[in-house]
């Protein structure tokens, strides 16, 4: 790991000023930054330690909205009784992510800045070509081993999968990220690669995430996060779905539904086509399975990741049907 200067920010203003310096990177939990610095992917000249800033880790949940401070640890948010009660998909996405140790370290603000696990991206020594690391250098994954790569939101520049879980639940429930001067929908905060794979987040030099806000809703209260993976625990998603469901008083007609996918797209992927196909309809297994297929519109595989096109709709359907059964 290349050496760097270390600066401990005691307040948010100092963090913003330091973050504007060329080559500066913010350090919260460290689970992404230190890992990528060891891989030779991140080469900060200055590390700005924001983990000692006071008052940025509050978890404030009411029926109307959840406001989660950027420095709240993933484990604390996952175990919060009000988050479990009012936003179960958020809690489930968090406790199924990473390991207990990593969840104790990682913050929710840092989690939004998590980088892809694309093995070509993570290995600059052996694979110099990577449009995320070096714009215009090409993509080593295309034509390589693609079992974990994305099928949605891909471009000729990049097919790296967005690896996180929390943000999948956040985009399903219209959460916003607070950057101080401005607030953005989490869905808009993440950028699909297009021709500019190096730009993953709509964040500018000197901006610092201070909080995440999630509007409360009946769909958020009846929600779940299902994560299918190669091993039972401590693994990234082969495909995952965050689903929220609100039914009419008849207990079967869909009033509101939210669906988002993880593990198959280049960013946390909301699938409104599935939502629109089910709103106002009475739930049946046949209808749910047919609607779930709509999530794969525009999907492009690169060989070994073809299975995701079959898997993802089944994960969505399972989540919707499980929620429907709890009526």
């Amino acid at each position: 790991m290349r050496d760097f200067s270390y600066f401990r920010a005691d307040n948010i203003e100092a963090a913003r000023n330091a973050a504007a310096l060329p080559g500066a990177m913010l350090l919260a939990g460290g689970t992404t930054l230190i890992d990528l610095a060891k891989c030779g992917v991140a080469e900060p000249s200055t590390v700005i330690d924001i983990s000692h800033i006071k008052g940025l880790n509050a978890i404030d949940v009411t029926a109307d909205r959840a406001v989660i401070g950027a420095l709240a640890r993933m484990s604390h948010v996952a175990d919060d009784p009000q988050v479990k009660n009012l936003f179960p998909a958020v809690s489930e996405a968090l406790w199924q992510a990473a390991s207990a140790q990593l969840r104790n370290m990682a913050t929710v603000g840092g989690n939004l800045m998590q980088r892809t696990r694309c093995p070509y991206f993570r290995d600059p020594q052996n694979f110099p070509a990577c449009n995320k690391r070096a714009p215009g250098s090409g993509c080593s994954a295309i034509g390589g081993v693609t079992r974990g790569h994305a099928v949605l939101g891909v471009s000729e520049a990049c097919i790296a999968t967005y690896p996180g879980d929390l943000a999948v639940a956040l985009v399903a429930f219209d959460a916003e990220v607070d950057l101080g001067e401005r607030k953005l929908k989490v869905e808009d905060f993440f950028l699909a690669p297009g021709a500019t794979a190096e730009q993953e987040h709509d964040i500018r030099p000197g901006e610092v995430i201070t909080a995440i806000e999630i509007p409360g809703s009946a769909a958020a209260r009846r929600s779940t996060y299902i994560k299918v993976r190669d091993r039972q625990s401590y693994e990234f998603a082969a495909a995952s779905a965050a689903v929220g469901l609100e039914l009419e008083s008849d207990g079967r007609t869909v009033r509101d539904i939210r669906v988002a996918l993880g593990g198959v797209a280049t960013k946390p992927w909301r699938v409104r086509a599935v939502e629109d196909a089910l709103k106002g309809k009475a739930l049946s297994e046949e209808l749910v399975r047919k609607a779930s297929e709509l999530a794969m519109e525009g999907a492009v595989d690169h060989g070994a990741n073809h299975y995701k096109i079959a898997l993802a709709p089944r994960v969505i359907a399972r989540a919707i049907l499980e929620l429907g059964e709890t009526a």
Partner: protein
Amino acid sequence: MNDQVTISPTTLSIHLAINGRDHALEIEPRVTLLDALRDRLHLTGTKKGCDQGQCGACTVHVDGERVLACLTLAAQVEGREITTIEGLADQDGTLNAVQAAFLEQDAFQCGYCTPGQIMSAVACIREGHAGSDEEIREYMAGNLCRCGAYPNIVAAVRQAARELRS
């Protein structure tokens, strides 16, 4: 508000509180807690497995919570309480209930992952995540054992959790 940003020099003078003792260190900013423990303070009970946040061998406690020392900068945990495997037994050598249960259940083969397993298990029980074998397996998933001693590890955690509850 502090509008001026002063960037630290390339060597940091820090103090770490480890197992109830204060240690003064001069380190480069990039030094991880794991390397500081092993190479500078000769607390080699904390193991370096993958050095990449994937195996759990370097698990220690910071302010009572289990974390990975390989992805933690030493400078970052100044002012926090750090506990390593060396700090787990009582002063008189009486083993922690989890250490004793690992011995009794023969919960290791080569022993390399064991300090991390034990530090993780102590926290797992304290968090209240050792209520069933299924829950133990889920919440101990961040500690890999390449010898495959998992059934005995689960048995040891189950036994220690029961003893600590009673």
